[in-house]
Structures are given as structure tokens and as C-alpha cells.
């Protein structure tokens, strides 16, 4: 038996042992779905580089290692302070909702914010039609594993015409590094004409190898607007495979911002189904990777209706032997006349061993559309360097400032000023060591 199938069998055995105790085990529909997901996983296993969608990302380090669920370790609330934003907060520790660490006071009427586990226990009825509808087990081995094992996450429902004054933060904390695994599953449903922001933050409190899967299923009703931030600040040996699927109604707007600052193997998949006229999605991603990190951004935007718009800006700063992969697929379906899609992928390579792979894919089946894409990978611009040096900055500082500027430029699109400043400061500390940052952070 190969090492890979051996590990696969251990997930099966683990499932057989834990299935009767998993959240919602008493719900026949969920138990059946979990079983089917496990069978799917047992059959397919993890993807390999032979799969077209995984050509540039080798996940065998995850497939060859036995990860186990982390036991709940108590978290010192003080350790979370640096990661908390001015927001309603749901905190998850090692994949479990931690009510004592969460802050949900003062939620307006019409906003329901619960943990998935609580929901499965108390009012599971409506989840049957919802959980796994947008991201099923057939997607790939990670999604299958997630559906089979995920017990917790956030369920966010916002009734029509509500404008949230503060964002909702979903803070996921990993406390145990040693070969631990966790699965999270969020469901977000936004009613008509809602304005809301959701921030997913991922933080590791200890170094060491860990692995997490995440699935977020989002449904945006007509006229709604969701700003969705994803901030990944994992330890250098933490790996994370996440899938976000967004179903968009008429004139809805999904505005996503992803900032990856740490991790060993990160893959974020974002699918947007622009299913009704006037729907728009925007995706703005920034990755800083060093060491042997691999960061894979994988998007698919389906223009299914007329007058739909997609915008995508993906940026990477790759140092050492880090590798950045961008695969961006835009499909303009036959009915999607007057669609407008733009995509750009720009990478800065700071080391001769760093690598960027860029795969823009446009599939256009309508004739009256506007589509543009561009990709550029390179090193620093000598003209910019000369300009800064001619103002008295030494060569090293000038280089650092240009790298900072390249990265910080992506933050300018973040609507939340507080978060923008906080992230700019994090970039400054990392990219401009020892510099006085005063005046740099807008």
C-alpha cells in the first residue's frame, strides 16, 4: 500500500470512529451527506499535479502527512487582542466556536449570527437546503474532507435593507501546531439591499505544521453589497486550502480583498456566479511569500447574465524560493451580453529562485462583451530606483521602499480605513525593517 493511500485510509477510519459524534450526527440528511463526502474522498483522494486545476501546486506534502484533529487548548484572551478589529466577532479556536472569546453584543435586529454547531443542534431545518449546495464534495478531496468532518463555522443571515454599521469578524485561531487539522465551514446569506462587511482572519498562535480546510458559501440577494476581507497570517508551516463560492443576484456587488502574509501552502479558490443582470464582483489580492511558501490563488467568475461585471487584481511579492500561482478563469456565457471583465496579475520576484506562474483563461461565448487581461512578472524598475536614490535614499532602502509601495498599493482599494492602516503597518514592519514609518501609512 502506498503512503498516500495509507493516509487516505486513516482519514476513513477516523471518520468511521467519529461520525456518530460529529455535530448534527442525528440529522439523517447530514449524516448521509457526510458519508457520501467521505466516499468521494476515499475514491479521489487529494488532487495531484496531473489534475489540470492543480498543475502548479503540489499538495503531496499534505497528502503524505497524518494530520489529527486538535484538542481544544484554552486560549489566553490577551493573545487575541492584536488581531481583533472594531467589529462583531465570532472566534473559532482550532475549528470550534469559542463563545467566551466572541463579542456579539448589540447586533441589530434582523441580523442572525450563530455558530454552525449551535445551528445544527437547535434549528437545523433550513440548513438542509443550504449546506454544501454551492460547494459540494465532488469539487475536490479537500472540499470532500471538509464536508465530511466540518462541525463548526459561522452562519450569518442578514435580513433585507439592513446596513451594518460595523463589520463582522470571523477570527480563526490555531493553538496547536503539531500536525493538527481543522475544518471550518461558513454560510453567509445576505438579503436584498443589505450593506455589510465580513472579515475572515486566520491566525496561528504557535508555529509547527498544521493544516486547515475552509469552505464559505455566500448568497447575495438583489441589490445587496458585501465587502469580504480574508487576512491570512499563519505560521510558516501552516497550510490552508479554502474555497469560497458566491451566488449573486440582480445588481448585487461582491467586493473581496485577500491579504496573505504567512503560510506554507495556501490555496484560495474563489468562484463567483454572476447569475443576474447588473451583478458585479471585484477581487483584490495581495500575497507576500518567502521561504518555501506556495501561494495559489484560483478564481472562476461566471458571467451568466447580461450587464455583469468582474474585476480582478492579483499581486504577489515573492522572495527566497517562494512560489506564487494565479489561475483566473472568466467564463462569459452566451446570454451574458454587455459583460465587462478585467483581470490583472502582477508579481515582483525578489530572488532568482522565486517563481510566479500565471494562467489567465478567458472563455467567451457571447459576442458583445468587453474583456481584458494582463500579466507581468519582473523585478524592480531601475527608473524608480534611480529617482529614489537621486533624493538621497541609499540603494537598499530605495529597493525596500519600492517593494513596500508595490504591495501597499493593493491596500488602497480596501474600503475599511482602520484595516488598511493596520495592514500597511504590518507591511512596513516586514518590508522596511528598522525604518521610521511615520508618514508612510496613509
Amino acid at each position: 500500500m502506498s503512503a498516500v493511500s495509507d493516509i487516505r485510509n486513516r482519514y476513513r477510519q477516523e471518520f468511521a470512529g467519529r461520525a456518530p459524534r460529529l455535530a448534527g450526527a442525528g440529522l439523517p440528511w447530514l449524516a448521509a451527506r457526510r458519508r457520501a463526502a467521505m466516499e468521494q474522498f476515499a475514491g479521489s483522494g487529494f488532487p495531484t499535479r496531473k489534475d489540470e486545476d492543480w498543475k502548479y501546486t503540489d499538495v503531496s506534502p499534505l497528502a503524505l502527512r497524518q494530520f489529527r484533529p486538535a484538542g481544544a487548548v484554552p486560549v489566553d484572551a490577551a493573545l487575541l487582542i492584536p488581531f481583533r478589529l472594531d467589529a462583531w466577532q465570532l472566534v473559532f479556536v482550532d475549528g470550534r466556536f469559542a463563545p467566551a472569546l466572541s463579542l456579539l453584543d448589540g447586533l441589530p435586529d434582523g441580523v442572525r449570527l450563530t455558530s454552525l454547531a449551535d445551528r445544527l443542534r437547535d434549528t437545523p431545518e433550513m440548513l438542509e437546503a443550504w449546506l454544501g449546495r454551492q460547494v459540494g464534495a465532488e469539487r475536490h478531496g479537500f472540499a470532500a474532507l471538509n464536508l465530511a468532518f466540518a462541525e463548526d463555522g459561522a452562519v450569518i443571515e442578514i435580513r433585507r435593507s439592513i446596513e451594518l454599521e460595523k463589520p463582522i469578524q470571523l477570527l480563526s485561531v490555531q493553538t496547536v501546531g503539531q500536525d493538527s487539522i481543522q475544518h471550518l465551514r461558513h454560510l453567509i446569506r445576505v438579503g436584498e439591499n443589505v450593506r455589510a462587511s465580513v472579515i475572515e482572519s486566520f491566525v496561528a498562535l504557535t508555529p509547527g505544521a498544521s493544516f486547515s480546510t475552509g469552505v464559505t458559501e455566500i448568497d447575495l440577494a438583489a441589490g445587496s453589497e458585501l465587502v469580504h476581507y480574508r487576512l491570512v497570517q499563519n505560521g510558516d508551516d501552516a497550510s490552508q486550502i479554502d474555497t469560497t463560492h458566491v451566488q449573486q443576484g440582480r445588481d448585487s456587488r461582491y467586493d473581496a480583498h485577500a491579504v496573505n502574509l504567512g503560510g506554507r501552502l495556501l490555496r484560495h479558490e474563489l468562484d463567483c456566479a454572476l447569475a443576474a443582470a447588473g451583478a458585479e464582483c471585484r477581487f483584490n489580492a495581495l500575497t507576500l511569500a518567502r521561504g518555501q511558501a506556495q501561494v495559489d490563488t484560483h478564481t472562476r467568475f461566471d458571467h451568466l447574465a447580461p450587464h455583469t461585471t468582474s474585476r480582478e487584481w492579483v499581486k504577489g511579492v515573492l522572495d527566497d524560493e517562494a512560489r506564487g500561482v494565479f489561475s483566473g478563469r472568466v467564463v462569459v456565457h452566451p446570454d451574458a451580453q454587455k459583460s465587462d471583465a478585467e483581470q490583472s496579475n502582477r508579481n515582483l520576484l525578489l530572488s532568482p529562485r522565486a517563481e510566479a506562474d500565471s494562467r489567465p483563461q478567458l472563455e467567451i461565448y457571447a459576442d458583445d462583451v468587453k474583456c481584458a487581461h494582463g500579466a507581468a512578472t519582473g523585478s524592480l524598475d531601475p527608473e524608480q530606483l534611480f529617482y529614489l536614490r537621486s533624493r538621497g535614499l541609499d540603494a537598499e532602502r530605495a529597493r525596500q521602499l519600492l517593494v513596500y509601495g508595490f504591495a501597499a498599493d493593493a491596500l488602497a482599494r480596501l474600503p475599511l480605513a482602520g484595516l488598511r492602516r493596520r495592514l500597511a503597518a504590518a507591511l512596513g514592519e516586514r518590508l522596511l525593517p528598522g525604518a521610521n514609518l511615520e508618514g508612510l501609512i496613509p
Partner: protein
Amino acid sequence: MILTIKNLKVEVEGKPILNGIDLEVNAGEVHAIMGPNGSGKSTLAQVLAGREQFTVTDGTVSYDGQDLLALAPEERARRGLFLGFQYPVEIPGVSNVYLLKAAVNAMRTARGEPELDAFDFLTQVRAVLERMDMPETFLYRAVNEDFSGGEKKRNEILQLLLLEPRLAILDETDSGLDIDALKVVANGVNSLRAPDRAFILVTHYQRLLDYVVPDQVHVLSNGRIVKSGDRSLAHELEARGYDWLKEEAA
């Protein structure tokens, strides 16, 4: 003598651009370098500031008695040499105020003076903004990004006024400016004229020289200074163009 250039020859990608420049600039003087497009004016300006893409194949440049060509661009800047760029470079993600402060403090550190704190720096920069008729919002935009042509040139003069260099080389700072902007730029330059400071104005037109009166005018053609004179030479060039000089030089 602030600057002495002797027989300076420069190539770009193997192609000769400057073919033996001789020039002396004394403290307190304003020199104008004029010439047709492609004569080597901008190359001369950039070589003096240390642009590494140009190869000096012969000649010497002495700045305050030191070998200028041996210094890195930042060293030249810290010793008081300033280049106002013909095409100021955009630096996305970096605020104008940060670059200004970093530049001012780099000069101060080089002179052995303490760095300015945020308050003192802002006081200084606000005074200069007012002289330049520029709003304070200018400080918080990314360096030159989405600036109009005129704003970029004003930003160069803003830096000039803050850095108070010993030798300022302004490379076509006047091009693309309307008359009001040109006056603001000229006033900035004039306000900085001093007995221990010199200017080299690289320009295609004599228009700027109506407002900043030069001590000497030099005409560059095919990488050589083919004629030097006082400010009346600029007017002659305006009236007659450059062709007669090319013929005279040939």
C-alpha cells in the same frame, strides 16, 4: 568653482551621445543649456546625477573638488546635487510626504544635523507648499501617481525648495507648463538663487529664461557645446532656430 566638466564622453548601449563636453559652473551662477531634441541635454543632466544606464567612456567631472563620477547617486544627492526630472517617476503605494521627509532627513544626516521630527518637518513643508501654491492634500497622494504634467513639475520644485541643494540641475522643468505654472516654478528657482548655489537649466525654449535670467547660455548639438554666450544667445535661438548653429559647427 562648483562644477568642472572636461571632455565628457558618454555612450548609451554602445551609441555615443555626448562627444566631449567642457563646462565650468561657478557658485552663484545660472547656466542654461539649450539645444534641439536628441542633442544630449537630458543625458548630460542624468549622467551628472548618477544614472547608471549611461556609460562614461572619457573625461572627468569635478564637483566641489571631488570626483563626481565616482559617487553613487545618493552620495551626490547628499552632497547637494539635485536633479529635477524631465519625467518625474511615479512611485505607487508610497506617499509624497514620506519621500519628502526621507529625502530631507537623508540630507540632514549627511550634514551631521539631527533628523526633523514630524512636527518640524510639516511646518517646513507647509511653508513651501504655500510658496508653490499647492494644496496640502498633495502630500498624501502617492509620489507622482495620477499627477498632471504640471503637478509633477511643481512637485520637483517643491523638492528643490525643501532640499536647498548646492547645485540644481533642472531638466526641462518648464516643458508642458502653462504660463501661471511657469511663473510659480520660476519664482521658486529665483527665490533660491544665492551666492553659494548654482543652477543648470536644461531647456528647449527660451521662455523660462525670460523669468529666470541666466548668466550663461550654452547650445548643445550632437553631444557637444557648439556655442556659448550671454542671455542674448537665447533670444537669437528663439528667432533663428537651431539649424544655423548646426551648419556653423559642421
